[in-house]
């Protein structure tokens, strides 16, 4: 992909820059769409209509208007806060989330960086988000924010273990950490997808999905934000576009774990119908559709379920998910040995 770009562009650095910014072209419109979708999904589940006016058709431009509003807002920094950390945290959060998109194979022709340790890289780089949340909570100089930040770091660090083990099950089955290779291995019909590979990989997917919900702080694991207890948690003191950056990160993270889930278990950019509707462009279509499906499921859960308490959250992780994940990993390995 970079080579193709270099032929058209005057300078190789420009080609690299465009190559690096391409996921942004997908992520930004996706976030605008996802926020709108969240409003619509929640509204229809709750017997409401949601935004109906802005832009005409079903309020499609509501989030664009919201973004413009946020950019115009005053940038408030609490007077007793740690100014540098406070200002830097939202950008670090987005950085950690965006960097992970580098190894997501959006289509058979496009992947940001052809890393051989793609899966490992994603798991490592997304942990930066924890750091930024802790920074934000500490720097805000607000007790509620600090409580929220502490909860988040405990939660994300704990839930990384089942996530990693679930991802590891796929690695055991495929024998590679390269996400592009994993996608290529699943080409063909829908039955080549890894989720149908063995019953234990199906269990691995369920484990992955549950723990990824906690990784991205979605209901029923949305304790860090828990608006009814902590009033926003770590981002209570943020306003305007800095707050917007946190929201952007949250939605980008949701997208990321959904895409990773579809690469690992649902064939990535492969069409479910074999050769029909397949190709590099269709690949992008399938990849994003699969991602959006999981995002829809996350929204569905969010507007249905209540929230767990912090000790119950830890119970779910340490007492159920982690033992299950490890036993499952062994079973996946046994399956691979026998068949």
């Amino acid at each position: 992909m970079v080579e193709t770009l270099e032929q058209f562009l005057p300078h190789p650095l420009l080609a690299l820059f465009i190559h690096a910014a391409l996921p942004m072209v997908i992520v930004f419109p996706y976030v605008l769409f996802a926020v709108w979708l969240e409003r619509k999904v929640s509204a229809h589940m709750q017997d409401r209509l949601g935004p109906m006016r802005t832009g005409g058709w079903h309020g499609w431009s509501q989030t664009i208007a919201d973004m413009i509003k946020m950019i115009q807002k005053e940038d408030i920094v609490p007077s007793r806060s740690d100014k540098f950390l406070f200002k830097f945290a939202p950008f670090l959060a987005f950085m950690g989330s965006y960097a992970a998109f580098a190894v997501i194979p959006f289509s058979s022709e496009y992947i940001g960086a052809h890393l051989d340790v793609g899966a490992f890289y994603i798991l490592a780089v997304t942990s930066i988000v924890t750091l930024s949340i802790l920074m934000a909570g500490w720097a805000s100089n607000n007790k509620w924010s600090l409580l929220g930040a502490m909860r988040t770091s405990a939660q994300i660090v704990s839930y990384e273990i089942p996530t990693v083990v679930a991802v590891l099950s796929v690695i055991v089955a495929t024998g590679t950490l390269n996400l592009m290779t994993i996608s290529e291995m699943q080409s063909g019909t829908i039955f080549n997808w890894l989720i149908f590979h063995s019953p234990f990989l199906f269990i691995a997917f369920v484990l992955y999905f549950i723990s990824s919900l906690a990784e991205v702080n979605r209901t029923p694991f949305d304790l860090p934000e828990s608006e009814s207890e902590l009033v926003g948690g770590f981002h209570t003191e943020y306003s305007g576009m800095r707050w917007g950056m946190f929201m952007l990160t949250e939605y980008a993270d949701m997208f990321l774990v959904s895409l990773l889930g579809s690469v690992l278990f649902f064939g990535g950019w492969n069409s479910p119908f074999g050769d029909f509707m397949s190709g590099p462009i269709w690949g992008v279509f399938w990849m994003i559709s699969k991602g959006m499906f999981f995002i829809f499921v996350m929204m569905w859960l969010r507007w249905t379920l209540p929230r767990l308490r912090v000790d119950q959250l830890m119970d779910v992780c340490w007492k159920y998910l982690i033992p299950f994940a490890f036993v499952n990993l062994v079973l996946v390995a046994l399956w691979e040995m026998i068949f």
Partner: protein
Amino acid sequence: MPELRTEEMVINMGPQHPSTHGVLRVELVLDGEIVVDAIPHIGYLHRCFEKHSESMNDYQQVIPYVDRMDYVAAISNELGFAIAMERMLGIEVSERVECIRVIFAELQRIASHLVAIGTYGLDIGAFTPFLHCFRDRERILDIFESTCGARLLYNYIWVGGLSHDVPTDFKDKVRDFVQYFPPKIKEYNDLLTYNKIFIDRTADVGVLPADVALNYASSGPILRGSGVNWDLRRDDPYSIYDQFEFDVVVGKGEMGTVGDCWDRYIVRVREMEQSIRIIAQAVERMPDEGDVKAAVPKRIRPPEGEIYARTETPRGELGYYIISDGSMSPYRVKARSPCFVNLSVLPAISRGSMVSDVVAIVGSIDIVLGEIDR
């Protein structure tokens, strides 16, 4: 290595907090996430209701102020005041008025419990049941609106009668609602009540044993949630409640201990079913003809004396203590507010729980700050 120094953190929950149901401030002393002590501070919504009443030129003028105490269940407040005054003056109201009052009070109880369970879901983190509850509350408010024009503060029940007659299609509307509502209760149960996460969050949380509840003089769903079978509608009947069939719902500790948050919650859900039963009986009993203002006195000049009358509002025992000096204005009006008394139990049951539990406990007590501060 030197010993790590730790200290307790004092944190203010409220007065600007989404889960304190108004302007309650709870001073929490925390050890990490564990609550060492919770001290409620009230008074942010004080409007001098009791003092105001003393300068009214007519007892009838107190009723709009009474509305504004428990603004989620305004009819129940009016009913209590009207009954107190009628006992003082020795007024008998007609059967039709009594039936309309009972229907209104029970509809108001359902509307109030809908707000209580909806916002309770919100406290626990479930958004959707809240809006479903408000959808159904809307139907009740529509009935109120078609009768007296108001949706929140009615000024409907007057001393000796009612301010307006009901519209001609009132009975049909009420019957429609009686038909419509019971399936919706099942919907809430499916969505919230028997949800595993909801049960985990509320069962065995904020356990209030029956003896503690009695010592704190709790009343209403709080007391019944602790397993005490006490309902003024049955045990000290007013209006014509003694002529209806209904059960008093008590908490049984189905999901955990008797008197936990889940019990207080389920008492409200089941009371709505009982209210539907009362409404169905009252609407069949209600005579079609009759002047609802027939017994409204032109001038209210009660004899010198005092009265205490208590009624069962959705939140518990609401008592009015009224002293008359024989003039047109009350000498003293004192309201025994159920929320105020119920809230006092908060420190006792929230010690040792977590921050999220305090939210669940405050929600299960179902306070309205307008009534606490008056």
